[in-house]
């Protein structure tokens, strides 16, 4: 083993020669699984890009830290008329972009219109993003330098919530004009607490505190987001002290961490706005029969599934809405685990001996289903006890989603994460008739009416009533079996303070500090 000996010599030489770089405490390094794809906020949907843009850009409004409310950010206040069709935003004054140019109504118009108007000189190449969130926006106009009006084509309650989204981030028109869209994408300019210092693709994004920031100055001068694709490797980097925090915590990571008993590492964990579910294709036999779907709901020991697969990373989901979100119906009754009842229901439905079916499990870990295969195996066992013989199957992720969107499955696991805080995010897309995210292919006129009306109603109390009723409807008809709400989690060095876990699983680092 000459090789090893030579390596040892080389290694010791290297070690002697090198002075390890000391991590300055004014820098916070955060590790995550992938790099940002783009930094033009109008063209992104992936979490990595959004989290990078969150440091650089700001929106007119933002979600409160607990996710329950909408707060002023670049707009100090807003109002809407009786029909809820016209929204007026009063802009914050004295705000400047990182390039020194002023933030005003023109900047708002520029940032939004380049997405809405294809003839805009800096129109985004792809209007699909805008149209998928803001197709109800009819007109955006400047009233004066500090006031902007947005006119909707129909009342649309989630509108304000969506205005806290990355598509509504405000960018510097001057920088865009100077750099062009491609250049801007690499050197974005916003009003946020940090400006982009350097972006080494697939490696790291470096931010430095913006001295001219209008709000509370960031506590840490530099923030570095490093991409470390492998979960275990990321944990090693944290244990070795190379990074100060990380996301992408899987049950495996928690297991290793417990074995290592690393005392200098703390875990933050909070219920997230997400839900993992098992969709049953209601247009295929025997799932077209609500009795069969109800039987399945009673056949599965959900408590056990969560106990054995989530490593404390989730809580049972009674329905689509997480309990932390407004509109959640707390009187909703959980389907008790009762195989005898399940068998009885199956017999009633005409399947006393059960049936054969296929169950798809997701090939990738998601917050709401961190180990889907294991969940599927337990569910398979539970189903077998009532006579349902389910074969497990999976595909690579891209294929999986596409096949599920074409409703090729009989039963499949999937989930949803809200990126705007509104029950609409959970209740509309995944369950309304004809939606491609209605993986149960369920169509129920009564349900559609409830959630459509809730979308058009701005008053929160009335919306809550509508959503509570809609949740009962789902429970009765059981087009899908909700499994769990996953926890948002990060691991941090003990010395990291001020880090908050937002329900949307997005990050803002300006309150983070490192105490020695």
């Amino acid at each position, binding site marked *: 083993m000459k090789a090893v000996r030579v390596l040892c010599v080389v290694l010791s030489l*290297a*070690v002697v020669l090198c002075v390890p770089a000391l991590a300055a405490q004014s820098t916070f390094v955060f590790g995550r699984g992938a790099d940002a794809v783009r930094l033009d906020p109008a063209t992104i949907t992936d979490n990595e890009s959004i989290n990078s843009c969150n440091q650089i850009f700001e929106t007119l409004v933002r979600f409160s830290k607990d996710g329950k409310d909408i707060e002023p950010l670049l707009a100090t206040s807003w109002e809407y008329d009786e029909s809820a069709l016209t929204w007026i935003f009063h802009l914050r004054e004295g705000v400047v972009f990182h390039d020194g140019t002023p933030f005003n109504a023109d900047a708002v118009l520029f940032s939004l219109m380049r997405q809405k108007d294809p003839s805009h000189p800096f129109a985004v190449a792809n*209007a699909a*993003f805008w*149209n*998928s969130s803001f197709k109800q926006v009819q007109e955006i106009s400047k009233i004066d330098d500090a006031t902007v009006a947005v006119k909707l084509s129909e009342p649309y309650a989630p509108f304000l919530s969506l205005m806290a989204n990355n598509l509504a981030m405000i960018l510097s028109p001057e920088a865009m004009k100077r750099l062009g869209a491609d250049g801007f994408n690499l050197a974005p300019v916003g009003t946020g607490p940090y400006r982009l210092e350097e972006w080494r*693709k697939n490696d790291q994004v470096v931010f430095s505190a913006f001295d001219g920031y209008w709000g509370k100055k960031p506590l840490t001068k530099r923030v570095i987001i490093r991409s470390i694709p492998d979960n275990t490797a990321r944990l090693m980097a944290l244990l*070795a002290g190379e990074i100060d925090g990380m996301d992408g915590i899987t049950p495996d990571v928690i297991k290793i961490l417990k074995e290592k008993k690393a005392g200098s590492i703390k875990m933050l964990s909070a219920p997230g706005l997400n839900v993992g579910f098992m969709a049953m294709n209601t247009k295929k036999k025997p799932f077209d029969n609500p009795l069969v779907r109800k039987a399945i709901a009673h056949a599965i020991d959900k408590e056990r599934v969560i106990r054995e697969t989530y490593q404390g990373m989730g809580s049972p989901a009674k329905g689509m809405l997480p309990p932390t979100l407004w509109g959640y119906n707390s009187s909703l009754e959980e389907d008790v685990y009762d195989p005898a009842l399940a068998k009885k229901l199956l017999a009633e439905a005409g399947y006393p001996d059960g049936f054969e079916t296929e169950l798809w499990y997701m090939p990738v870990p998601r917050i709401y289903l961190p180990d889907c295969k294991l969940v599927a195996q337990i569910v398979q066992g539970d189903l077998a006890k009532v006579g349902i013989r389910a074969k497990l199957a999976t595909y690579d992720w*891209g294929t999986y989603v596409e096949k599920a969107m074409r409703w090729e499955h009989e039963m499949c696991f999937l989930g949803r994460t809200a990126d705007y805080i509104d029950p609409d995010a959970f209740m509309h897309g995944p369950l309304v008739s004809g939606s491609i995210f209605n993986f149960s292919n369920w169509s129920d006129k009564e349900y559609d009416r409830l959630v459509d009306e809730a979308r058009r109603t701005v008053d929160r109390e009335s919306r809550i009533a509508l959503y509570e009723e809609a949740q009962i409807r789902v429970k009765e008809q059981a087009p899908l079996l909700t499994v769990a709400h996953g926890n948002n989690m990060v691991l941090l060095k003990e010395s990291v303070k001020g880090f908050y876990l937002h329900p949307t699983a997005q990050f803002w680092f300006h309150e983070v500090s490192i105490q020695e």
Partner: protein
Amino acid sequence: MRTRSYLAYRFLSIIPVLLVLSFVIFGIIEAIPGDPAQIMLGQHATPEALEQMRHSLGLDRPWTVRYVLFLGRLARGDLGHSILSGRSVLSEIAEKVPATLELSLVALLLAGVLGVLAGFLSAWRQNSLFDYFAMFGSLVGVSIPIYWLGFMLIILFSLNLGWLPTGGRLAATIEFQPLTNFYLLDALLSGNREVLADAIRHLVMPAFCLATVPMAIIARMTRSSMLEVLNQDYIRTARAKGVRTGRLLFLHAFKNASIPVVTVIGLQFGYLMGGAILTETVFSWPGIGRWLLDGILGRDFPVIAGGTLFVAAAFIMVNLLVDLLYLFLDPRIRY
């Protein structure tokens, strides 16, 4: 003259190879399900938005049309734009190749020097204890899973001993503006010793990991090739006429034994260029392998097509270089 026309022939034959390859790649991409528009829009996708996205990405056209357009652009040296990042595939390749090349070259150097040395000594002292050890080591080398080895190295050298960083090309906090993206070269050019030392520290484990398999293969090939040559008549003659052992081994035996070794090294280099996806993943190395993998998972067709073609072209070029090296190694070879 004949050599020159052979060269021209070899260069020109790259074109049909790449053409066939591009056709196969397009066919495979077409056959696998998965829609980049869907992947990009995620849960915001409405049917209209999907349609719009597919149209603006040109995905609503038949693949034959897209293939012809692709070839047209290729002829002008344009590999198109990445669907995900929106940047030109060529500039993305240019950005990632230095990282992969730096790692591959260091790994190959390690594998070549140690592999040839081990094989050489094993052949010289055939059936000695060293021979057994070296050959057992090479067996372990080819069979050891990189993933496992990588993490073992990280646990030992990063976590327990604290000597080496767990991954990446440079420590996060080092401020450094790369010029060529070959960090070793950049550090040398700018005379920045801190960066040089840090870059070397980051290279050690991934390069060693990546070198294990080629090292083992090279060692075995060197050994068998040397043994074959050492058993030939002219070696016995040389020995009989009193040629010194060193001269005999290096000049008479090794030079003639080196042709298959060079072939193997060339092939291994081709493989390394294709991106050592596992090593790059374990050690967070921002190279071409990871980039291609991300492209495949995101169904980023221009990246898959452009990246694969680039790797194939690199592979062919390396093979061509190896064939040309034969001319110097064995004067009897003429093309």
